[in-house]
């Protein structure tokens, strides 16, 4: 009915603009809030929320208690609800929407839900309107009517969907629920009778949750890589702290300290009634000896050449603190690569990428020249490399005489340099197997090491050819110390 018609029938009608996007967002928030009952929640259509409570109902003292708690809380927020718990998603959906109107939650006893479904109308099967209309036209009005029909005839006449929905509702076909977010591997929850808002209490709750989670991880021999601490506010919003660790960890002090640094970003609003800590990515972490706190840590005399990789265990807490404030990508290490293109010979790799693989790679394929430029595999002297390398190289204005000469003067970063000494050229060409590289402007570079009057040493290269459509250009690629 158009709005104008409705207003003509009933002039005092209160109207509100439809806001589907807002409604969907609100429903999503509600589904997220329902995460206090189970991690497996998702919004359903435009007016429903599905919660998979298998295995979590006992935490609330049974299904009845859970449903009562849910209804009471939603009532407090002035939401009209219709709650149903059943063996299958289809049966719960049907019961919640089409069972006899009662304000109380409907709980179908476990076991056969065919009997409960039989008296419901065919609309309860989550079919599109055209199909239900067709079913009604031939006199199939109740779910029970359908169940009595030969299945292949039904499928031929009304499509596979009808039999599939029927089977799903009756539990003959599985119907997995895809949760709103990623389902966590481990999850611990702390609920409060009285909402809390004091920062000290939040910290205490966080510490308790971490202490709760850690034994479970220890039992499984795993450590957390990604954690999510959700603060469920009284008003239904969820404040989250998401953490990543550079290496799997289950050190309660360390994890609590990481959360503590971010606790001030949590706005408790009118109070927080639930705190849920979930570990998402876990990785194997073998049990280790528990260290006694040392008053002044000894200088660690580590042998070996692995450096960061080998003593990662010691500095992992530091890396996590740095990574969680500056971003895990900001903490990196050098990784030598087998390439003679200078900017590819040594790349920055975020520290969070598993070091074991890298270590093995490094051992199996030592890259001559990229680590120690003076010594190559066969004792050949490699040319020196700069301490600073600019990526991309910076173009300079240069003057030179003969085609193969280094420049005698160049200007870079608003400074002029007069070249007094030069070494070169060292020709570095694009690797021939790089297909896309062959067309690059700087596919062939002639490198010169030049020294200016002050004694500063630069790494210049020229690219392009004389008398070619790509005329030569000069770039500063690095600065020597």
């Amino acid at each position, binding site marked *: 009915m158009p709005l104008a018609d409705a207003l003509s029938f009933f002039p005092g009608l209160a109207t509100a603009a439809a806001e589907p996007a807002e409604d969907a967002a609100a429903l999503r928030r509600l589904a997220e809030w329902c995460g206090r009952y189970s991690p497996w929640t998702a919004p359903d259509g435009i007016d429903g929320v599905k919660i998979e409570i298998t295995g979590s109902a006992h935490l609330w003292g049974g299904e009845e208690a859970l449903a009562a708690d849910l209804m009471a809380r939603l009532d407090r927020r002035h939401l009209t609800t219709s709650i149903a718990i059943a063996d299958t998603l289809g049966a719960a959906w049907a019961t919640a929407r089409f069972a006899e109107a009662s304000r109380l939650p409907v709980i179908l006893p476990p076991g056969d839900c065919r009997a409960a479904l039989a008296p419901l109308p065919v609309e309860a099967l989550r079919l599109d309107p055209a199909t239900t209309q067709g079913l009604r036209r031939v006199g199939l009005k109740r779910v029970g009517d359908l169940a009595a029909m030969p299945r292949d005839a039904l499928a031929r006449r009304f499509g596979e969907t009808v039999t599939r929905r029927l089977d799903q509702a009756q539990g003959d076909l599985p119907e997995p629920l895809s949760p709103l977010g990623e389902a966590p591997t481990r999850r611990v929850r702390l609920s409060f009778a009285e909402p809390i808002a004091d920062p000290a209490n939040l910290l205490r709750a966080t510490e308790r949750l971490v202490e709760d989670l850690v034994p479970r991880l220890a039992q499984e021999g795993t450590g957390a890589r990604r954690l999510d601490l959700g603060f469920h506010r009284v008003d239904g919003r969820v404040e989250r702290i998401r953490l990543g660790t550079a290496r799997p960890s289950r050190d309660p002090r360390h994890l609590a300290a990481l959360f503590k640094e971010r606790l001030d970003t949590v706005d408790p609003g009118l109070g927080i009634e639930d705190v849920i800590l979930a570990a998402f990515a876990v990785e194997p972490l073998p049990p280790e000896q528990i260290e006694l706190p040392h008053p002044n840590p000894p200088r660690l005399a580590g042998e070996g050449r692995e450096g960061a990789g080998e003593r990662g265990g010691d500095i992992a807490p530091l890396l996590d603190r740095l990574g969680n404030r500056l971003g895990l990508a900001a903490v990196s290490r050098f990784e030598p690569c087998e390439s003679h293109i200078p900017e590819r010979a040594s790349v920055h790799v975020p520290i969070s990428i598993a070091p074991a693989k890298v270590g093995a790679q490094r051992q199996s394929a030592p890259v001559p020249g990229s680590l120690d430029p003076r010594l190559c595999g066969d004792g050949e002297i490699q040319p020196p490399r700069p301490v600073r390398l600019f990526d991309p190289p910076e173009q300079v204005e240069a003057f030179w005489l003969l085609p193969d*000469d280094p420049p005698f003067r160049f200007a870079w970063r608003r400074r002029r340099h007069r070249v007094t000494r030069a070494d070169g050229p060292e020709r570095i060409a694009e690797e021939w197997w790089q297909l896309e590289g062959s067309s690059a402007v700087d596919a062939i570079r002639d490198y010169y090491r030049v020294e200016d009057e002050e004694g*500063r040493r630069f790494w210049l290269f020229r690219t392009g050819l004389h008398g070619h459509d790509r005329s030569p250009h000069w770039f500063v690629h690095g600065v020597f110390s």
Partner: protein
Amino acid sequence: MIEQRARLPELRERIRRIEQPTAAVHGVLPFGVAAIDRVLPGGGLARGALHEILGMGGDEEDGAVAAGFAAGILGRLTGAGNGGTVLWCLPRPDLYGPGLAGHGLDPARLVLVQAPRDSEILWAMEEGLRAPGIAAVVGEVGTLTAVASRRLQLAAERSGITAFLLRRWRDSGQAARERNLPDAAVTRWRIAASPSQPPPIPSPARGGGVGWGSGVGCPRWRVELLRCRGAEPACWEVEKANATGFVSLASALADRPAAPVPAERFRRAG
């Protein structure tokens, strides 16, 4: 009587500790060049202290020479079985591993922390100075307050981790403003590149023409000790002798050639 005599060195050590707290508590790292070590209190660079390294001219912005000087020291600090990780905090990812390896610092020992702001770099340095397993912390910092440098110095003293501040400025204006401000670092160095001597064998590639007769020789630096607690300012002309990061007095100025280097120091990194 014998007992009393044995106690004498111990008492001397205690007095020395009272006189020069930082150098004596955590020991020193000698440069291996007698002329430099003679000047520094304790005979080397104090461990567990904050050292500041400045560039000169255009290098105040690029920070290449200062990084090379620091890499040489760090190579000796972490090399030869000492181990440890070096935390290097920098605003731009322009540090180049193979270049550092040329100064004797194994790039695999480095953990790089990139942060755009000075305050974040100082924070990361301070965190690093509290962590066991870290051998040294390096930070490339532009603006530095006296309080921030004091905090770093205290953190270094407490943990025994050596800290290096590489001063790197945006432009010459900022450099002029910041260059002479006092801070709490134990030593302040200024390293400037100076023209190299042509190598003994002239480079055959570029003969004749417009004066490209000789190639670039061994890198030379003018190392100035601008300030040091318990020592006089001094200045040396040094030449980077080899890939191990040892520096030696430039042969033209010193009365002996480059310091001899044991062969096993040519260690393949990685």
